[in-house]
C-alpha cells in the first residue's frame, strides 16, 4: 500500500519536474532532486520500539525536504533487503538498501572493542561481513589492524581505539542514537538482591549472576524466559542470544570476561604469555565432564582444533576455498598457528600474529568440548561436504560447566541443573528458561511468580517500570549495554555517499526525545560504537556531537551547496 503510494508520488514528482522544465519561467539554477529514500526497520509487531523510532526519524527527515518511505518488514525479510542487498545488481531486493535501523546486541566477548572496531568497518568485511554499510577507508583499516596487534602497550591501543572512534564519528558512517539500558526484573522475594552481579555492558543476566545468585527460599529454582527460539545447544555454534546464554553456563571456557569486562582465567588455573606469540595455559586440576570423564589438556586442545577443522574445496571458478566445519567459531581460532600439549593439564598456543584480543575473543570465547565425544563427530563431518556442525544436536549435551542439561525442547524450554562436581557449584539447584514470545504472558508470569527472573524485554520499558512500581517483590535492574541501536547508511551510493548529507541526517535524529519518549529513559545516548559501559576504552577527548536540529541540518546542507526547489524538495549541489 504505502509502497504503491510512494511509486505514485514518484511519478507525480517526475511529471512535476517535466512541467518545470517546459515552463521557461523556472527558478534559479536547478540541481537534480534527491530521489526518494527508503528507510528500513522491522515491523511494529516484532519490535515496537525500533519501529516507532524509525517512524519518528523518517518524519524528521521529511523536514529536510526529502521524499522518505518507511519500509517496515519482518526481520527475516529485512536480512534479505539489507544484509543480502548491499551492492547494485547482486542484491536479493530490487535495489541496494539505503538506510536502515540496525542494532548490535551486547555479548560478553564484545567487551573488548576489537570486534566492533574491526568487523564493523574494515574494508575486508565489506562484501560478506558486518561492514554491510560498505565503509572503505584505508586510513581506518590501518588503525583497525594496528589496534589488533598492539598487545603489549594498552595505552597505545587506547589511543588507536580513540582515533578510530573519531574517524567513524566524523565520517558519520553510522548514526548512533542509543545504548539501551537493558532492563531486567528480578523477584527479590526469592533471591537475595545483593547476590546479583551486574556485568559491564551486559547487565545482571550474566554468568556471574547465574552462579552467584542466592535463593532465599527452599525452592532453589531460577525461572527465566526468552522471546526467541532456543534453536540449538551446540558448543561449536553461535545460535543466537538466548542459546548462547545457556551454552556459556554449560560449557566452561579457559577464561571468562569478568564483571568489569576483563578476561580472567577460569577453567585455566593460569594463562602465561611467554612472548606476544606464545601463551601457556594450565587447566585446573580435578575438573570433570558432565558424563564423569576427566577434563584434560587434550580436550582443551581439541576444542580449538575442532574450531579450526575444515576442508578445502575448489568452486566452479577454480579458486580454492576453505570451509570450516564450525564456521561460527573458526574466526576466533583462526589466529592459532599451533597447539602443543605439555602435559595432562597444560598446553601451549602459538599464534600467527600477535593479538591483543586473543584472551577476550578466543580463550574467553571458545567452549571447552570433550574430545571423546566430538572427535568422532567432527571426523564424520569432514567426510561430508554439505554439512557442518550446525547440523549437530546432542540428545543431552555434555560440557564441563557449572550447569548441566536435564531436558530441553527447542521450541519450549531448557531445564538445567547445577553440576555438583563443579568447583564453582552455583547456589541455585535448577535453572529454567521458557520460550515465551507473548509479552503479556511474560508479565503475567513475573508478577504471579511463575517466573522469577525476567531478562529479555523487547517491549515498552515503561511497562516494566509500572509493574515494578506495583509489585514490591519485584526489582528493576538495568545496565547500559555494550550493544547499541543505530541507523546504518549504505555509504556506497548517493545520497549517502556524501558525508555532509549523512551528517545532516544525523542532525535530524532527536536522540534525547527518543530516549525520553520511546525508551522511557531506559537508554543512554550513544555517540560511538564503543559503549560508555566500557569505561576504559572511552577515555578519549570528546567526539564530535550532532545535536538534534532540523535547522542545523538544513544549514549544513545549504553550506554544502544543496538547495531546495519551489516545492521545497532537496536538490543535489
Amino acid at each position, binding site marked *: *500500500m504505502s509502497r504503491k503510494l510512494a511509486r505514485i508520488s514518484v511519478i507525480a514528482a517526475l511529471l512535476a519536474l517535466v512541467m518545470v522544465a517546459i515552463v521557461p519561467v523556472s527558478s534559479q539554477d536547478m540541481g537534480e532532486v534527491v530521489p526518494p529514500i527508503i528507510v528500513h526497520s522491522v515491523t511494529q509487531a516484532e519490535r515496537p520500539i525500533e519501529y516507532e523510532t524509525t517512524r519518528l526519524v523518517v518524519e524528521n527527515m521529511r523536514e529536510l525536504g526529502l521524499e522518505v518511505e518507511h519500509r517496515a518488514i519482518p526481520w527475516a525479510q529485512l536480512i534479505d533487503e539489507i544484509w543480502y542487498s548491499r551492492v547494485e545488481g547482486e542484491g536479493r531486493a530490487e535495489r541496494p538498501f539505503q538506510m536502515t535501523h540496525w542494532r548490535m546486541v551486547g555479548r560478553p566477548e564484545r567487551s573488548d572493542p576489537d570486534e566492533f572496531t574491526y568487523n564493523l568497518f574494515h574494508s575486508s568485511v565489506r562484501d560478506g561481513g558486518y561492514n554491510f554499510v560498505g565503509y572503505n577507508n584505508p586510513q581506518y583499516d590501518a588503525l583497525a589492524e594496528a589496534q589488533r596487534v598492539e598487545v603489549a602497550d594498552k595505552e597505545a591501543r587506547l589511543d588507536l581505539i580513540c582515533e578510530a572512534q573519531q574517524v567513524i564519528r566524523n565520517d558519520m558512517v553510522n548514526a548512533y542514537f542509543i545504548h539501551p539500558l537493558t532492563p531486567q526484573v528480578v523477584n527479590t522475594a526469592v533471591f537475595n538482591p545483593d547476590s546479583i552481579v551486574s556485568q559491564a555492558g551486559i547487565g545482571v543476566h550474566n554468568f556471574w549472576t547465574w552462579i552467584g545468585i542466592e535463593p532465599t527460599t527452599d525452592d532453589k529454582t531460577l525461572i527465566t524466559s526468552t522471546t526467541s527460539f532456543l534453536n540449538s545447544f551446540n558448543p561449536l555454534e553461535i545460535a543466537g542470544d538466548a542459546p548462547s546464554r545457556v551454552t556459556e553456563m554449560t560449557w566452561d571456557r579457559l577464561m571468562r570476561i569478568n564483571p568489569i569486562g576483563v578476561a580472567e582465567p577460569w577453567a585455566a588455573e593460569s594463562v602465561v604469555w611467554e612472548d606476544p606469540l606464545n601463551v601457556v595455559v594450565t587447566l585446573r586440576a580435578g575438573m570433570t565432564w558432565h558424563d564423569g570423564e576427566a577434563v584434560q589438556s587434550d580436550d582443551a586442545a581439541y576444542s580449538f582444533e575442532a574450531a579450526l577443522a575444515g576442508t578445502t574445496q575448489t568452486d566452479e571458478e577454480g579458486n580454492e576455498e576453505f570451509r570450516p566445519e564450525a564456521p561460527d567459531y573458526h574466526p576466533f581460532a583462526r589466529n592459532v598457528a599451533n597447539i602443543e600439549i605439555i602435559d595432562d593439564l597444560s598446553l601451549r598456543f602459538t599464534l600467527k600474529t600477535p593479538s591483543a584480543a586473543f584472551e577476550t575473543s578466543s580463550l574467553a570465547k571458545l567452549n571447552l568440548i570433550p574430545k571423546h565425544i566430538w572427535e568422532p563427530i567432527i571426523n564424520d563431518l569432514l567426510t561430508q561436504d554439505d554439512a557442518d556442525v550446525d547440523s549437530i544436536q546432542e540428545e543431552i549435551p555434555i560440557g564441563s560447566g557449572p550447569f548441566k542439561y536435564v531436558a530441553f525442547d527447542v521450541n519450549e524450554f531448557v531445564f538445567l541443573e547445577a553440576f555438583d562436581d563443579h568447583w564453582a557449584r552455583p547456589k541455585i539447584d535448577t535453572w529454567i528458561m521458557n520460550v515465551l514470545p507473548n509479552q503479556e504472558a511474560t508479565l503475567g508470569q513475573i508478577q504471579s511468580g511463575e517466573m522469577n527472573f525476567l531478562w529479555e524485554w523487547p517491549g515498552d520499558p*515503561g511497562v516494566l517500570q509500572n509493574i515494578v512500581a506495583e509489585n514490591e517483590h519485584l526489582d528493576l535492574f538495568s545496565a547500559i549495554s555494550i550493544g547499541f541501536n543505530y541507523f546504518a547508511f549504505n555509504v556506497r551510493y548517493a545520497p549517502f555517499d556524501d558525508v555532509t548529507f549523512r551528517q545532516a541526517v544525523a542532525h535530524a535524529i532527536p536522540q534525547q526525545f527518543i530516549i525520553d519518549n520511546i525508551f522511557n529513559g531506559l537508554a543512554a545516548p550513544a555517540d560511538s560504537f564503543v559503549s560508555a559501559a566500557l569505561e576504559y576504552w572511552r577515555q578519549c577527548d570528546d567526539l564530535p556531537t550532532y545535536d538534534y536540529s532540523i535547522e542545523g541540518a538544513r544549514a549544513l546542507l545549504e553550506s554544502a551547496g544543496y538547495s531546495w526547489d519551489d516545492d521545497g524538495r532537496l536538490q543535489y549541489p
Partner: protein
Amino acid sequence: MQQDAMAREGQSGKPTARFRQGSAIRQLWETNLEVFQRDKMALFGLLIFAVFALVAILAPQIAPNDPLNPLKNNNGDWIKDAMPYWLAEPGEDEAEGYTNTFLLGTTNIGRDIYSQLIHGSRSALLVGFSAAAAVAVIGTVIGLLAGYYGGWVDTILMRAADVAFGIPFIPFIIVISAFFDPSIWNVVIAMALLLWRDTGRVIRSQVLVIKEQAFVSAARVSGASDLRIIFVYIAPSILPLSFLYGSFAIAWAILTEASVSFLGFSDPETISWGYMLQDAFNSLALSREAFYWIVPPGLCIMLTVMAGFFIGRGYEEVLFPRLRRM
C-alpha cells in the same frame, strides 16, 4: 368482434408502457427491498454499514487527530497512556502539560485511539466490501458454469472447490501476507482465492434445481440460447443467493483482516481495527488494564461483522422461507 376491439385498443398509444416487462433487474431490486422490509434485523445491519461507511468517508473530518502521529504536550513530549477524559483524574493533564480531550485516551506512544478507531473503519469496510464483491462474483460465475454446463466443467470446478476447502484459510493468508508486502489487499486476494468455494457450491446446487424447472425447459423449447437462459432465466433467481453469501463474506473478510493484522502481518501504515488490537496487545494494554484501548476496536469489528450476518440472515429468510418461522 369483442377481442378485435381490444386488440385495437392494444395498438393505440404505447401498449408496453402499460404492461410491465417484469425485467430481471427490477425483480432483483424488489427481492432486495423485500429483504429489508421483511427483516428488521437486516435493515439494522444495513444501517450499521451505512453509519460506518459515513464515518469512513468523513474520517479525516471527524477524527480530531492524526491517527498515526503521536500527540505532543507543551514540552513537545508524547502524551502517552492518557486515560479517556471521562476516566482520568481531573488536573492530571494540566500537570502533564496538555488538556485531555481524548474520548478514548491515547496509546502507549501517544496516538489518539478515538481517531484510530475512526480511520480503522476505512480499511475494515474497504477489505470487507472488496473481498465480498470478489467472493460473490467468482463464486456466482463458477457456480453458474458448473451448475449449468455440468459434465467435466462441473467436475473440475467442484474438485477445485474441494481443494479450496482443504486449504487452511488463515494460515494461507498468513503465508501470502508474508510473501508479499504486508497490505490489506493480501486478505482480499486470499479470500478471493479461497472463499468462493462456499458460494460456488451453493449456487451450483441452486442452479441445478432451477435448471430442471419447467420454465427453463420451456425457454429452451421456444429456442432460447444458453446465454439467454443463463442470464435471463437462471441468474436473476440466484443473484440474491450471491448477495447472501456476499454479505457473509463481508463479515468473514473483516474478521480475517483483524486476525491477520493481529498476528502482525498487516501494513502498519494503514490503521485497521485489527492493527489497533495488535498494537494494544504488543504494547501490553492488557497489563495496563487499558480497556478503553482494547474494547472499542473489538466492539467495532463485532458490530460490522454482525451487520454482515444480519443482512445475510435477512436474505436467508427471504430465500428459504421455511426458516421464516418466528
